[in-house]
């Protein structure tokens, strides 16, 4: 900061105008010294013109007296509230050339009315507060939007090459020096420079140096880390919630040119709607209204292609059985995995080898299959075509969790209509279809799991056991053990069903 010239003092003369040429743009102490002197010499604000460094006072004051008046010897030093000092310190950094005179005018008026500074309805006080607010915002935005780029440089003697972090920034107010402390505290152990059109700051890890104004060309042109940063910026943005106004309010366009990520904004906005539409199409299916009758479900599943299984060459298989006590319904709903080859051809659930094994066990446990509603978690047969020993076969494939979840809509709708007292899910897929999550058969079997009502209608309880086709795939001791467990499960279900009835 250059010291101001020794000012010659003389007594104030009536009708004299004074010009105060400020040597600095951001030095509060300089302004305060001038202001104190003017105030003590009783110079009213409309007799003073303040000029920026290098500026002129314009026509009005072209003949003004540059020598400030000498204060009366017995004039008391002016006093002012701390609140004024605080706001004035900040407001002085505003780039509005009127700030020096505005502050002096408020200071002058405060002498007669010391509490004026609290009166936010006063135009001068407001203007001063507004200036301070603009400055605070610019200070904050500089801390936020400065972007360093790293330059590898020869280290000092005895050191390795070192990293130098250099930023180019264009503040709107005279805030560079004010912000030096922030960057020094934060990046104390880094070598950095901040270049601006109004001056520059250089920190070498120990001391801060001020340098002359710089141009964009003095700053490095890029940094490899910016690619990572841009990818991050593009990925963290949620295209389903575009709020351009909110972004612009906090990050006005004027800052964009020095922010590497900002160049992505136009394409991100342009692509957002398309990305969201694609997400919705790939993702959540709007299933529409729940079907109200089994007939409606049956019609709908034949047309269903909401997952890839529905697009295979197969036929949807609807559940079957009574659905009311009048029709002889025992309150039991049996859910399997999905139709197999036989079921697909006959259009009925559990008619193949697994179904036949199930029938044997049901009869043994004393459960009347014809009084139960029998259906599958997945409505279509999932298979891969394969040639086995010269003939074309359709090999069963397990449905994926996603496919089961899509089909839950149908099996839950069936449950809502049939309103079973007890649901028996056979196999992990069926259990997932009922619960929406995968459970282990070993852990889940043997005790009831409460099932919530659907859309508030009809709670129930779920029993889980193995799928009969699993038994078919085993042999020897393993098969015997699993058949034993299966029998126990069915016996428990039969007992529980009797209890509920």
């Amino acid at each position: 900061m250059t010291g101001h010239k020794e000012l010659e003092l003389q007594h104030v003369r009536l009708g004299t105008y004074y010009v105060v040429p400020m040597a600095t743009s951001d030095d509060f102490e300089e302004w305060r010294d001038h202001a104190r002197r003017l105030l003590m010499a009783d110079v009213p604000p409309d007799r003073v013109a303040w000029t920026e460094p290098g500026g002129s006072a314009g026509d009005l004051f072209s003949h003004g007296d540059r020598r400030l008046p000498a204060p009366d010897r017995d004039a008391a030093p002016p006093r002012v509230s701390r609140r004024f000092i605080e706001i004035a310190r900040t407001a002085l950094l505003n780039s509005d050339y009127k700030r020096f005179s505005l502050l002096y005018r408020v200071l002058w008026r405060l002498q007669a009315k010391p509490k004026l500074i609290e009166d936010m309805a006063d135009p001068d006080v407001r203007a001063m507060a507004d200036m301070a607010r603009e400055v605070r915002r610019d200070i904050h935005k500089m801390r936020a939007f400065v972007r360093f780029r790293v330059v590898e440089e020869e280290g000092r003697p005895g050191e390795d090459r070192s990293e130098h972090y250099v930023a180019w920034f264009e503040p709107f107010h005279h805030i560079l020096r004010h912000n030096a402390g922030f960057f020094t505290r934060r990046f104390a152990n880094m070598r950095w420079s901040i270049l601006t059109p109004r001056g520059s700051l250089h920190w070498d890890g120990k001391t801060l140096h001020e340098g002359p104004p710089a141009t964009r060309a003095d700053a490095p042109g890029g940094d490899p880390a910016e690619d990572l940063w841009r990818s991050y910026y593009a990925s963290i943005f949620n295209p389903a919630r575009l709020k351009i106004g909110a972004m612009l309010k906090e990050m006005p366009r004027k800052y964009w040119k020095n922010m590497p990520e900002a160049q992505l904004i136009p394409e991100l906005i342009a692509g957002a709607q398309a990305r969201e539409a694609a997400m919705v199409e790939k993702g959540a299916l709007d299933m529409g209204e729940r079907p109200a009758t089994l007939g409606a479900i049956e019609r709908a599943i034949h047309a269903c292609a909401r997952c890839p299984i529905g697009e295979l060459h197969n036929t949807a298989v609807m559940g079957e059985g009574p659905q009311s006590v009048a029709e002889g319904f025992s309150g039991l709903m049996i859910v399997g995995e999905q139709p197999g080859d036989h079921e697909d051809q006959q259009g009925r659930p559990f008619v193949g080898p697994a179904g036949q094994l199930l029938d044997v066990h049901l009869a043994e446990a004393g459960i009347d299959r014809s009084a139960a509603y029998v259906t599958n978690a997945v409505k279509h047969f999932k298979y891969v075509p394969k040639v086995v020993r010269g003939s074309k076969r359709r090999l069963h494939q397990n449905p994926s969790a996603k496919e089961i979840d899509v089909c839950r809509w149908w099996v839950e709708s069936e449950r809502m209509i049939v309103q079973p007292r007890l649901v028996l899910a056979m196999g992990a897929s069926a259990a997932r279809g009922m619960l929406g999550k995968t459970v282990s058969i070993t852990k889940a079997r043997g005790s009831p799991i409460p099932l919530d009502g659907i859309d508030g209608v009809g709670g129930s309880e779920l029993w889980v056991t193995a799928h009969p086709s699993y038994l078919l795939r085993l042999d020897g001791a393993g098969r015997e053990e699993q058949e034993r467990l299966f029998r126990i499960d069915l016996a428990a279900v039969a007992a529980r069903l009797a209890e509920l009835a």
Partner: protein
Amino acid sequence: MAEKPILERLKTLADAAKYDASCASSGTTKRDSRSGKGIGSTEGMGICHAYAPDGRCISLLKLLLTNHCVFDCHYCVNRKSSNVERARFTPQEVADLTLSFYKRNYIEGLFLSSGIIRNSNHTMEMLVETARILREEQDFRGYIHLKTIPEADPEIVQRAGLYADRVSINVELPTDAGLTRLAPDKNAGQIDGAMAGMNSAIVEAKDAKKRFRHAPRFAPAGQSTQMIIGADAASDTDIVTRASSLYTRHRLRRVYYSAFSPIPDASAVLPLKRPPLIREHRLYQSDWLMRFYGYAPHEVAAAAGADGMLPLDIDPKLAWALKFRESFPVDVNRAPKEALLRVPGLGTRAVGQILMARRHRRLRLEDVAKMTVSVKKVQPFIVTIDWRPVLLTDRADLKALLAPKAEQLELFVA
């Protein structure tokens, strides 16, 4: 398995993290790096280093350590049954990325969360390890927010507090029924217990700090949580009530709301249309009313309609004022602060200015106009020495006069 390049993994794991609303970096202790060998500082006020076109602040590097997950929460893009691309970072990679971004002044710090890999304890250990590397090995003094996993052992969860400024546990859904249906692997009691445990650890550490100067810092920015809005049937009243109970019971610093948004490969249990974004906004406004404007939760609920939903076309403060017109007009020259804070269109700053200014002058309407954004909005509810709203508050069409025009609303709904 060979890992993909870091750029690809960053895309995947930032994408997976974007459904967390919080990015705050405020409210922690003041510190800087002058006495250390690393970098970083926090000065109380958070800094948003960028804004995305979704209007959200980018303050922290918000990442998932991995998006592999053994849980199967229906609203979550990373659930086990989803087909999204999976990736993972090592704790060291995340620490390096954080420093590399921090040194270039892109971020205030790190917000790290994770899918559940192997088990909850292992996952929580990895999160804590990342924070440990940053703090102990790199002497990083910026902001760290760790998402904690309620299913992990309390001992590991609480180690997070030693390194992090803020910890959070998501309640996920406003009602327990919603949680049971949409997050079948999570347990409401466990989440609540983890929050209570975290709260007592924070209180205990604060107390120790008062007595012993060298007591360790423990999550100085407190804990926060997040709820998903519009994925279940919870009404605004349910949500506001839940939030208020979280604030009082667990001393949360913030409850974040995240409007459910369509996610790629969504679960079929969510045949959902997304809720209007404005709903999330109205809930935040009601949150503000409770935290800064002295409204009790039941008063916010009273602003809601019979269905428990806050109006979307007007803000909840105006909705309350229109319902309780007998509380108005308020005399700006005499009314206590509490009454002024209830005037639609007067914010906390305007109220502060009115209170100061009226010590020096009797306020006229034009004076109030200078302190507010829109005097038109305030006018029907106040009295000044030169203005009295003659019967205005009795007008049946007052809402129509004050509600923003439909065209303006488009901006939000789009």
